[in-house]
């Protein structure tokens, strides 16, 4: 993700090396251990022992954040592969491998989070058994797509392993068929990221009219693409801001423009959709209208920052803008899955318990810890001349 790309150099990836037992790594490990203890309780005594889930709110933050938002964080690999291999923009090439790795963790852990949340997890393999399949289920499509995509990401990332361990013959063979997996790696997220939106269509009146629309799949696909771009820009700028490394300005400029376009499409569609459905009035005084405005202001603020062309080369503007757009995407998805949702035969209340939150924190901490190990031990990041700087940057970036 922190792609220290020098587009004009011949591409080559290198492990950044350095110590594994750094402070950020240890902090993440502690958080993972805490989550593991909570999960032992969850598996021993049921979901109710650690969560505030109820029959009014059967899905809490483990679904809304770990899976729905976590998988959007994992869309970096999707958008970079789309740009690099489908639209043939070679200049993004150095950014693909770190992005694919970030996606691998994003999706791998979203999958793990599903196993944490499933009430009858020992049956999870029924999702893959054709005789259990129920083809009308949007969730079946999402589940199969996400599972397949995680495998595709493993294959897409495999060259890094094979390089590291010098399995040259296999690497060459894999490279000959890699295009199949690249194509799948673009098709599958397009399918399941949009379907994550379709999943909430069926809750009908329980989702506020500010969000309930047949266009949910379009909005979810747009936020997936937007968040994919935003996370690449965010991490890249973060590294250069903190460590005075040269910014990859030309590539970031282009990504910023793409973010602007996607955000514009999102906002325009959102307003037109509300107008056409005659629900714009809900934004003024309707329930949860405040959350609609926070989401919209973040989105509009993020895109307005990108309108002056000069801003697209300024690290601070890019950082602020990508942060706002990321936050807007996160909040949009949270609004659809939790905040805008009102159970039908109530009253019900939900706010995540501390233990629930700590498990979510643990999932993301595991993601960061794995990231640290992988970039240090595997050729993931694009090589730069000054080896020590990279190592330092990556360690401290997560501090």
């Amino acid at each position, binding site marked *: 993700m922190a792609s220290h790309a020098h587009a004009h150099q011949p591409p080559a*990836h290198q492990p950044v090396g350095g110590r594994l037992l750094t402070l950020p790594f240890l902090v993440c490990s502690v958080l993972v251990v805490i989550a593991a203890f909570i999960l032992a309780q969850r598996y021993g*005594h*049921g*979901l109710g022992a650690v*969560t505030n*889930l109820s*029959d009014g709110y059967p899905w809490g933050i483990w679904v809304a954040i770990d899976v729905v938002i976590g998988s959007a964080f994992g869309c970096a690999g999707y958008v970079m592969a*789309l740009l*690099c*291999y*489908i639209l*043939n923009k*070679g200049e993004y090439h150095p950014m693909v491998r770190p992005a694919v790795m970030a996606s691998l963790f994003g999706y791998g852990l979203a999958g793990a989070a599903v196993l944490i949340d*499933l*009430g*009858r*997890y020992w*049956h999870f393999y029924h999702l893959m058994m054709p005789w259990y*399949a*129920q083809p*009308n*289920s*949007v*969730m*079946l499509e999402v589940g199969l797509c996400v599972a397949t995509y995680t495998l595709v990401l493993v294959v897409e990332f495999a*060259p890094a392993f094979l390089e590291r361990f010098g399995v*040259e013959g296999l*690497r*060459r063979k894999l*490279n000959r068929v*890699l*295009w*199949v997996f*690249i*194509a799948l790696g673009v098709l599958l997220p397009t*399918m399941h990221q*949009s379907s994550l939106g*379709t*999943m909430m*269509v*069926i809750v*009908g*009146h329980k989702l506020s009219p500010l969000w309930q*629309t*047949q*266009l949910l799949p379009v909005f979810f696909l747009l936020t997936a*693409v937007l968040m994919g771009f935003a996370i690449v820009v965010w991490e890249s700028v973060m590294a250069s801001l903190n460590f005075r490394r040269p910014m990859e300005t030309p590539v970031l400029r282009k990504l910023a423009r793409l973010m*602007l*376009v*996607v955000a514009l*499409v999102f906002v*325009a*569609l959102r307003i*037109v*959709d509300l107008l*056409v459905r005659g629900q714009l009035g809900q934004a003024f005084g309707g329930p949860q209208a405040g959350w609609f405005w926070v989401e919209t202001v973040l989105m509009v603020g993020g895109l307005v920052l990108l*309108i002056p*062309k000069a801003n697209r080369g300024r690290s601070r503007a890019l950082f602020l803008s990508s942060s706002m757009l990321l936050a807007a995407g996160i909040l949009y998805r949270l609004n659809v899955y939790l905040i805008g949702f009102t159970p039908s*035969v109530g009253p019900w209340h939900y706010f995540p318990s501390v233990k629930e939150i700590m498990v979510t924190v643990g999932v993301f901490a595991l993601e960061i810890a794995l990231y640290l190990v992988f970039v240090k031990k595997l*050729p993931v990041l694009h090589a730069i001349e000054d080896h020590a700087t990279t190592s330092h940057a990556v360690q401290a970036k997560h501090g």
Partner: protein
Amino acid sequence: MATPKKTVSRRGFLRNAVKGTAAATAAACTTVVAAPPEANALQRPPKPLPPDAVGLLYDSTLCIGCKACVTACKDVNHMPPDVGPQQQAWNGGPGNPTWDTPVELSAKTLNVIKAYVHGTGATKDSAENGFAFIKRQCLHCADPSCVSVCPVSAMTKDPQSGIVSHNPDACIGCRYCVLSCPFGVPKYDYNDAFGEIKKCQLCKQRLAQNELPGCADVCPTGATLFGRSDELLKEAKRRTALKPGEYAHYPRGDIAGKVGGARSGHEKLVEATYQTHIYGEKELGGTQCLAVSAVPFDKLNLPTKVPETGYPTLSEGIQHTLYAGMIGPAVVFGGLAYLAHRNTKDHPAENQSEQ
């Protein structure tokens, strides 16, 4: 879709982007959202009731709140007592309840009688200063959301009787059925490490032996009546047309007198004014279980602002359009694979060994 055309000049880019996106989105939105439901390509046709649909008719004006149905339901379905946190203080303490005191459907309670109370609560079946009962259990929808969402066919609707039942041996516990049910019926046991989804299955095990569902079997007044859904709807229409002061016959058990044997009904002076609204006749494409009442159903905490077609018509409409025969995804995959194959050749990094 989210990528701009490279050919657009930088100067005119923003203006064009705004115009283009606005026009495209307006067109897309108008076709998808503004089209009337019957013309909406993204809505699949609603499902009719199965040929031998059976269900229950609950008449709130006949219900005396004895909760014999709640007890019978527990007995015949072997369900444990259900004591809410508010009841524990006077009810034997946690884990040692004396009485079964459910206040809402739960993983331990498939059927419950709830009360509406207003003001002084003096008059039965009156919205003002009165009270009324409502029975909650699965309505067995014509087009059930829970069946549509279940990824592993654990929730199924019988093609003949229309009974919606659940198979815990298939269930993965995702609780999408709980989330999607417009009536808040399926429940999950969060306090069990191996919790199951629970819901009323219309005592299908008893129907198989020509016995009535537990609730209809024990109801002393005929407030819960079993029968074929079409006959129940006819009966509901007869009742909602009754006027206070008339004498009317109220059957008991099975409306056709077959399941569980013939039972005597009773003659009764109609005291309350029925609402004309028959709950379940049209809600979300219709349900096999119906309810009539003198108090409006929104006061009885049932969802009333719902469409007349089931929500699966919308979600399945989207899916069946996008994924019809998997042709769309296959075509997209073909295009992507072609481009990826062509373009990876241009990227030397994929073909040369590094390090």
